[in-house]
């Protein structure tokens, strides 16, 4: 069982700025994660995700802004409550697993005599026990990644940062790692999960933060965001024939899609009006919903618009 944060949010970043050369890589980024919350941190390559994470972990100093970890500026004690699996990761290929895990655990403040027990537990949890006497260089890429994850969580962190954790893993190990992350979340661990895979975010995360060109362009609950980005289209399936969909009030266009209809509304039209018209006509409805885009579609739409195909007004900022 992870030790819950005793004071303050696991992480609270406020107004972070970072400039490399002539480029502002991160611009006014604010982010807070609560205990037991899994936050997806998404954005295209070069958007500033890794730089933001490094500032939150005090690897890079921000040019402006502040970071509080467990309610205070990060210090050694706070570092020991963090687990970090970076995107650029590796271990000592020439060393055997036990001394590496022991070293990593000791750096996280685990007493020397407790480190082997914690390492064994983490290895067992991830199915690596049979490999424990091997050198890192003898492991496959996937097993090395699992080992790295074991090193990240063995000291039972309260705040976990995972940067592209599933890249290079087979589906079985992805499922194993996702289950482990879910278990940790249930134990109250705050997780910041950086990825390009929107399906993983939809599956794992309570909230999503999207960053593009160094700025946060989206921040909110996954369901809330999908609802907010819902289109003016309806998906409709009926048990009885509906030959006159186009004649419904407020409908601009209708097309057959599988067993149902995809209906586009006029500017004056509303879902409630269409539904009422259908009920009034005695149509038996099996499915009636507003078409919600996937996170990937939202991501592409926002990234595309901010790359020149749209205006800044299209960027969405929501609370959360």
């Amino acid at each position, binding site marked *: 069982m992870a030790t819950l944060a005793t004071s303050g949010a696991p992480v609270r970043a406020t107004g972070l700025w970072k400039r490399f050369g002539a480029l502002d890589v991160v611009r006014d980024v604010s982010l807070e994660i609560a205990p037991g919350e899994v936050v997806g941190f998404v954005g295209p390559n070069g958007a500033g995700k890794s730089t933001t994470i490094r500032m939150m*972990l005090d690897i890079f100093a921000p040019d402006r802004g502040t970071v509080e970890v467990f309610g205070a500026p990060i210090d050694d004690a706070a570092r020991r409550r963090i687990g970090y699996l970076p995107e650029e990761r590796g271990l000592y290929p020439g060393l055997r697993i036990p001394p590496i895990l022991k070293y990593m655990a000791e750096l996280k403040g685990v007493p020397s005599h407790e480190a082997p027990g914690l390492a064994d537990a983490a290895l067992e949890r991830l199915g690596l026990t049979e490999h424990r006497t091997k050198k890192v260089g003898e492991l496959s890429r996937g097993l090395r990644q699992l080992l790295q994850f074991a*090193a990240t969580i063995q000291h039972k962190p309260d705040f976990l940062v995972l940067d592209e954790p599933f890249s290079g893993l087979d589906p079985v190990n992805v499922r194993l790692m996702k289950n482990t992350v879910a278990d940790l979340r249930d134990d109250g661990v705050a997780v910041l999960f950086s990825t390009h895979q929107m399906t993983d975010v939809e599956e794992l995360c309570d909230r999503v933060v999207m960053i593009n060109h160094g700025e946060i362009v989206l921040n909110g609950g996954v369901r809330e965001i999908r609802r907010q980005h819902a289109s003016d289209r309806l998906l409709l399936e009926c048990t009885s024939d509906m030959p006159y969909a186009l004649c419904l009030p407020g409908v601009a266009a209708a097309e057959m899609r599988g067993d149902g209809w995809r209906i586009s509304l006029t500017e004056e039209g509303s879902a409630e009006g269409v539904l009422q018209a259908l009920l009034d006509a005695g149509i038996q409805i099996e499915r009636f919903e507003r078409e919600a885009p996937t996170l990937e579609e939202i991501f592409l739409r926002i990234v595309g618009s901010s790359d020149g195909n749209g205006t800044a007004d299209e960027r969405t900022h929501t609370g959360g």
Partner: protein
Amino acid sequence: MGSVRIVTRHEFRTAVTRPSYIILTAAMPVLVALAVAGFAIFTLVTREDAEAETASSAESSAQTPRLGYVDLTDGPALFGAHQDQPGAVFVPMPDRDAGIAALNDEQIDALFVFPPDYAETGTVVRVRFADDAGGVFRPDGPSYSGTLRGFVLSNLFADEVPVGLAERLQIPYRLEIEEVRPDGGTEDESAGFDLGRAAFFAVAGISLLFSVFFSSGYVLNALVEEKENRVMEVLLSSVKPDALLLGKFLGLGAAGLLQMAAWLASVGVGVLVVGLIVDIPADILTMPGVGDIAIAAGYFLFGYALFASLMAAVGAVTTSLREANQISAIVIVPAFIPVWLNFILFSEPEGTVARVLTYIPVTAPVTGFIRLAIGAMGPLETVAALLVLAASAAGALWLAMRLFRAYLLMYGKRPTLKEMARSVVSG
């Protein structure tokens, strides 16, 4: 400090358990053991030869040539004394025939006759057998002229001059040459030269050179390897960059010094063992003074800190081990300038070149040890040089930490000098 201690311990353990480290550390004791064993065998063999030669000499002295002589001079016997001469014994014969008989019986090795007119003519007759005498070939043998001269002079002046002067009559002079300055003074290069101190600083200087190569090289390799295998970022989420760098300095420095200690100890044991076999000047075997140890320790400490810092800076801004090793030559090569210019340092240890090299940070340690070994650095100059070196080491450490913080997670591209300068200034 907890993180520094953990990193230090890890780096030390990792370094000293590497096969390359173990092989390199064991190489010197093995070489010393082989050298001492070879020396011992050589000494024993040559000693046996010497003993055999001594025994042969003793044996041959038992067979000292016996030179018969017949004194036919008038009056009191001129040659009645001093028969024992170096390398021969003169045996008086009653007459010529008795001498020939003794020569024929090989009781004597040569026969000399002093005729009655010897005093006037100085003639001495050596009697020997003709080549075909008795049909037996008899080699001419030694002339014994030097021995005969000594015998004659000893007897002629036996009662006339003191014994010492008689020796001078035999060997009138031995020529020696003395070189002086025009002012009449003499050049005595050995005056004030402390052999033990010279040996101490020479060994310490050589050790420092190895330290530069190995210990700071370990720092460079460790940093670049962690960048290459991407461990760095994982570590930096747990420990501050400065603490990580400091831990590496201490751990790898300790590994390097342990290696030095093993090598120096093996050399020391080797010298002691050689001392049991042959005589070694006592100065070399005496313990150095506290002041000299402090000076050597200062040069070690600041020298290692300087070069390890510079190596860390190289490791911070490079992206591969190959590139790092190439660029590290910029740091290592200048350290050897004093070695290349040793002829200047030895001939003019207090000259301009020597003094300038003493204060240039990368050449200071080796130059300092050379000049200290010669005895050409006074206390004030030593303290000043150490202070400059310490300040340089501190500056290099500051520079390394700035570059380390700026470029520790940089992969694939080396920064330009302009970028590095900006990073150092901006922190």
